[in-house]
């Protein structure tokens, strides 16, 4: 029987023998999860699924889950990343299926690969966002984006827990475009990837590739910049979804962080 005595480590833990990286989505209502909420949900899912996750040592052992820049509360994502340390090797596909089954619907594991080579953080320097702007005409958005892209620098202010920060949106913006309207000139209907019904009115859709900076430029900051530069104020809250993360190539596309030689397509 194990009794902890003064001066001993509380839980000498078995070592990490394998790391698996996973891409997961934050969808629908669960886009309102904060990063801490996501992390807690994963920690519990790992336990429910019986995954042999490694733990930190000490009096307060925590499962070894490493996170990469989380999508903000309220933003959906098709491309969040986490790395899990295991005490026993597992097939990545098996791990992904087990975790996906144990997570609440809306947190969905999409892809997994054994970690090798460069660190996850070194494989990501930009995000591609899709932002739906209900009530905004595509031509209004186009004009605003043209104005923003014509500047060299566009500073917006954001209130963070550590005070007010000035953020240069233009400097971080690699690319931004209006997605083409649906065929037949019908109003574009807002249908996010998770199938939540949209408002059924005009909705411009923007795709933006944003370089990772500190602090990170968020979709809200891009919208703030469009307000500053062109007075664009969507009448209803915009819905942002992170579609991809990865390393920027010379064309402004993103390389898949889980595969050294796969490159995501632009759509």
């Amino acid at each position, binding site marked *: 029987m*194990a009794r*902890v005595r003064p001066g*001993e480590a509380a839980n000498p833990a*078995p070592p990490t023998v394998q790391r698996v990286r996973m891409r997961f989505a934050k969808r629908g209502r669960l886009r*309102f999860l904060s990063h*801490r909420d996501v992390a807690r949900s994963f920690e519990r899912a790992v336990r*429910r699924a019986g995954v042999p996750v490694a733990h930190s040592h000490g009096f307060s052992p925590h499962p070894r889950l490493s996170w990469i820049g989380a999508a903000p509360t309220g933003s959906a994502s098709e491309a969040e990343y986490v790395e899990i340390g295991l005490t026993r090797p597992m097939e990545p596909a098996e791990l992904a299926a087990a975790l996906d089954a144990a997570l609440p619907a809306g947190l969905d594991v999409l892809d997994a690969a054994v970690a090798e080579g460069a660190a996850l953080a070194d494989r990501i320097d930009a995000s591609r966002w899709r932002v739906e702007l209900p009530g905004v005409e595509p031509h209004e958005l186009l004009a605003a984006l043209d104005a923003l892209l014509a500047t060299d620098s566009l500073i917006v202010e954001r209130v963070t827990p550590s005070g007010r920060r000035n953020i240069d949106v233009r400097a971080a913006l690699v690319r931004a475009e209006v997605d083409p309207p649906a065929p037949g000139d019908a109003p574009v209907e807002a249908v996010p990837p998770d199938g939540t019904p949209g408002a059924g009115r005009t909705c411009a859709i923007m795709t933006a590739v944003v370089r990772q900076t500190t602090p990170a430029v968020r979709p809200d900051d891009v919208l703030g910049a469009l307000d500053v530069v062109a007075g664009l104020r969507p009448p209803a809250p915009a819905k942002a979804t992170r579609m991809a993360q990865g390393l920027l190539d010379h064309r402004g596309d993103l390389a898949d962080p889980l595969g050294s030689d796969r490159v995501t397509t632009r759509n």
Partner: protein
Amino acid sequence: MGLPWISVTAPSVFADLEPLLPRVAKPVQYVGGELNAQLKDWESAAVRWALMYPDAYEVGLPNQGVMILYEVLNERADALAERCYAVWPDLEALMREHRVPAFTVDGHRPLGAFDLLGVSFSTELGYTNLLTALDLAGIPLHAVDRTDEHPVVVAGGHAAFNPEPIADFVDVAVLGDGEEVVGEITDVVRDWKAQGRPGGRAELLARLAATDGCYVPSMYEVEYAPDGGIAAVRPRESAPASVTKRTTSDLDSWPYPKAPLVPLAETVHERASVEIFRGCTRGCRFCQAGMITRPVRERSLRGVGEMVDAAVRASGFDEVGLLSLSSADHSEIAEITKGLADRYEGTNTSLSLPSTRVDAFNIDLANEISRNGRRSGLTFAPEGGSERIRRVINKMVSEEDLIRTVSEAFAQGWRQVKLYFMCGLPTEEDEDVLEIAGMAHRVIQAGRAASGRNDVRCTISIGGFVPKPHTPFQWAPQAHPDVVDERLRKLREAVNSNRKLGRNIGMRYHDGRPSLIEGLLARGDRRVGRVIERVWREGGRFDGWSEHFSYDRWTAAAQAELEPLGVSLEWFTTRERDRDEILPWDHLDSGLDRDWLWDDWQDALAGTEQDDCRWTPCFDCGVCPSTGTDIEVGPSGTTLIPLTVVGGGPTSGGASAGG
């Protein structure tokens, strides 16, 4: 402030709510979708319940009462239950602006569409939040204004043992354990609907009033005497003269919650909870929970083991709370803790005993609890600083026991001890409170001696005492907050009078003024309802939260509403009652014999102790005969079945600690 736009249908309001969520704090608390949440087909159920915990989601979600009833009701083929919690003022304002009605988090259905709205009151400070929910739902605030189309508003929980202050706002108050009566209420509503709603709402309420444990305030008339007191409480028509609480026996046959809700948002208790017994006969005279939940009914060793297993598997929580009013008192607690610690060896699953008495506690127990997990501080509640006051409140733990226990704990590696006390107890003098300082000093000295270290900590946490109905102190005068605050100021001086010891002692106490309002709401009668409504109309919300509570608003409302009636805030709180006074809850029967309560009050004043009937002969408190129950304690003759643990097996083989 009624909201006219609400129609009684059941489509989800989520599409209207969703655009508001990016504009409020912690939107995740309003979206539902928790693990083990249930959403049943609306049309499949003959009877539909909305279950509300009238506080913020982070407090309400872990509530066991709501979780139990949610499962019990959803297991019925002919019923469904959805949950809701109080919305914060930021969302409330947006809901009013955008005409979004109060909703459940499961189906986001409007509360007004349900047959019943069940509200669980752990504390009286949730009353204003009830009014917000009713108003946002388009349900008339006053029960008398409701029609057949409105839900039946049912109050439960400990505060429902004196529902008189909210008598105008609720249709029914349920006394006691809810597991069984909730089904009987469902049957009554189902039959009434199936029969074509004969006699309308009045008939439905009359049928509910005939259901054991259900009190329908509108069927009782209260007459007041010229001195301000109650002259008579008269049942009308078929209503019974008094309503007796419900008591669920054989907890092993009620293993709820089977699949605890796992919140997405952060909540106050991040753990799976298993109730290991219900009721307490320690007889602490201040403790309403102990008085109104008698007799003691233990869950068996096997029952506890099975529930813990189910909860851990279903939730993925890494902590299991073994809940009761005094968990170390379970007759098989040593077997439970050792068995569970063995079972979860190497899985980083920790146990906690949230309520433990010094005299029922030992270091073996503490070691088992912390064996697989985190070793947080030890917490004890001597409640009173002096031996004399502990005799008055019948919390007989000696300082010697406390010092011995903490010495051993410090010797075993613990570094922190938390001590809970109350201030403002009946007969209390400054000296009774100042003795807390000496006790804390001796804890530090003993801790340093036992551990050989200087950095041991003791935190003393102090709450203002509020006399509650159905306790021997129901007749006692409540201490005024000014008295309490002054005593605590002197206590702080006494703690710091020895700098070398005082610097290792933390002292926490809250503003004493909310306690006085809690006292008004706890021992108030129907006239207090006007105060609640006025405070709510003037913006009162979330009164359990210091950043929202306004003492001035409450005192001004009490003055405006009560003084024209010849009573006052002080009349309800700091006034001592005599034996003959009709108390507002006298027609509500917790099983305790009124004469026994009075004698126990006199014993308190004389400093005479009362033993526990689990270990000494029955002292005739009256509960068992009047509720047809009996003490149910072990040994149960069962064993804690060893089980294979999720995530255990070969992967955890290397995880056992040495030593």
